[in-house]
């Protein structure tokens, strides 16, 4: 069992990737939000708002936020789903989940919070109206397995939303590379004292499948009506798919 996968540009054994990713997020959890704001110049908020709008959560909905981390999506879903709804905040990383749980609590939201692996979701089939994963799919070792799991727990008619960094438009490629390989690790060093984690971030974005590839992957996982929206010239993209 020495299957290998990529961790940034490095090729590592699969179980090692899990550990390395965990290390990255343990390291950045406390400053995750401030770093997000600084690095994306606040854009990640817009992207998330766009995702939330596309989710269209209504009162009574059951939602699953995978890799929900600090709870940006879950927090809004919980408000929208109301007291009759059910919003689960999950993450595979304990440090991130801890931050998210406390943040939701401080907003007066009591939601179930669960530490779980997206490749082995502990939920029954056909349970959720919405499943979302924002900036999380990239870090998963078996993306195909994870996508299949997400489809499994969706109700027929339920919608999967995948917000993830993607392939930026051609003209912007150069400055974007400069930014993410030079500026990003430098800022990571200055603000979070951790250049390595942010170098991984930049590399993992490059290794992540582009818009069309991810679309095909979602179709392979059995999702229908898959479409994507480029955000900020493709720096990020929102993919949606429906289980029919």
């Amino acid at each position: 069992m020495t299957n290998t996968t990529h961790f940034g540009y490095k090729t590592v054994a699969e179980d090692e990737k899990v550990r390395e990713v965990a290390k990255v997020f343990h390291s950045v959890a406390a400053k995750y939000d401030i770093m997000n704001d600084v690095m994306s110049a606040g854009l990640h908020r817009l992207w998330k708002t766009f995702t939330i709008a596309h989710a269209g959560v209504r009162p009574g909905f059951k939602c699953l936020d995978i890799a929900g981390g600090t709870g940006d999506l879950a927090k809004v879903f919980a408000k929208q789903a109301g007291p009759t709804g059910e919003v689960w905040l999950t993450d595979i990383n304990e440090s991130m989940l801890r931050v998210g749980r406390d943040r939701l609590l401080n907003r007066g939201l009591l939601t179930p919070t669960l530490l779980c692996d997206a490749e082995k979701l502990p939920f029954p089939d056909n349970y959720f109206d919405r499943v979302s994963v924002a900036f999380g799919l990239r870090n998963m070792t078996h993306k195909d397995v994870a996508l299949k799991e997400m489809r499994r727990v969706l109700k027929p008619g339920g919608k999967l939303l995948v917000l993830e960094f993607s392939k930026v438009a051609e003209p912007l490629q150069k400055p974007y590379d400069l930014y993410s390989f030079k500026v990003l690790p430098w800022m990571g060093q200055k603000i979070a004292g951790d250049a390595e984690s942010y170098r991984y971030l930049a590399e993992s974005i490059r290794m992540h499948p582009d818009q069309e590839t991810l679309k095909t992957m979602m179709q392979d996982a059995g999702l229908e009506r898959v479409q994507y929206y480029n955000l900020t010239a493709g720096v990020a993209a929102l993919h949606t798919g429906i289980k029919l």
Partner: protein
Amino acid sequence: MKLKQFLIGAVLAVSAMSLLAEATARPMGGGRSIGRQSQNVSRMPPAAAPQQAPRQAAPAPAPAPAPAMPPKPASPWKGILGGALLGLGIGALFSHFGFGSALSGILGSVIMLALLAGVVVLLFRLFSRKSAPVMAPAGYSGNNGDANNNAYAAQPVPASTTPEIGSRLAEAPAAAHTPWGVPADFDAASFLRVAKGNFIRLQAAWDKGDVADIREFTTPEVFAELKLQITERGVQKDYTDVVSIEAELLGIETSNNEYLSSVKFSGTIKPAPDALAEPFNEVWNLVKPVSGNGGWLLAGIQQLEQHA
């Protein structure tokens, strides 16, 4: 003339209505003090913003960071240094304006340097504090809770006697925020997290009039009072949406085979779906038997003196 009168009347009516609306929208317990009250809490200085008000020691002009975090004993040098720098800066300012000497340029840059140093220190503290897990109260108890704790254990505070005013005044300045009687190994962070959860849950139960859920978390006395209020309210449901909430462990008293912990909740609540969020500030007194495995129950709600 008529119109003017009408307008005044209308304004009065509207403001009266809004007063009424505010009066009906209240958190659990109707915004009154009920049940067990903690003497320690009522003896607290009624400061609206307790972080800043008390105890400005020798380096008075030193900016915010020092008083915000009293438990770190390692920092006196920074405080003194900061004060000295600031003093120097102000002195420089005086001489700069007073005499306009040739030194003024240098003095000006000294001010700049002092200010810059201040900013750097502030930023540094901000970040280093953020990075530490957010459990200030645990830190408190770790550092100076020990001494306090032993002292209180030696002479347990009888909850009902009148306070000897002098005895507590001696430590009152520091005690403005130092929790009383918290055991050193008490996991304040988890305790407060669960307390927040229960606060939110009880507000929801109160809104719905879910008596069964309220009974889970309250002592019989408080339950009786709340049930009475719910019955008085009738079929009409209440609405309290907790928008934000902070909890702070004020202290734990041991008396009558019970622990009585006082938790101050503050934050904002929406009294109606489309209303503006309003601040709230109240202390919940929770009890737990010293022996046995009973959990913490809400024994009383205590309103703080309002000095806005």
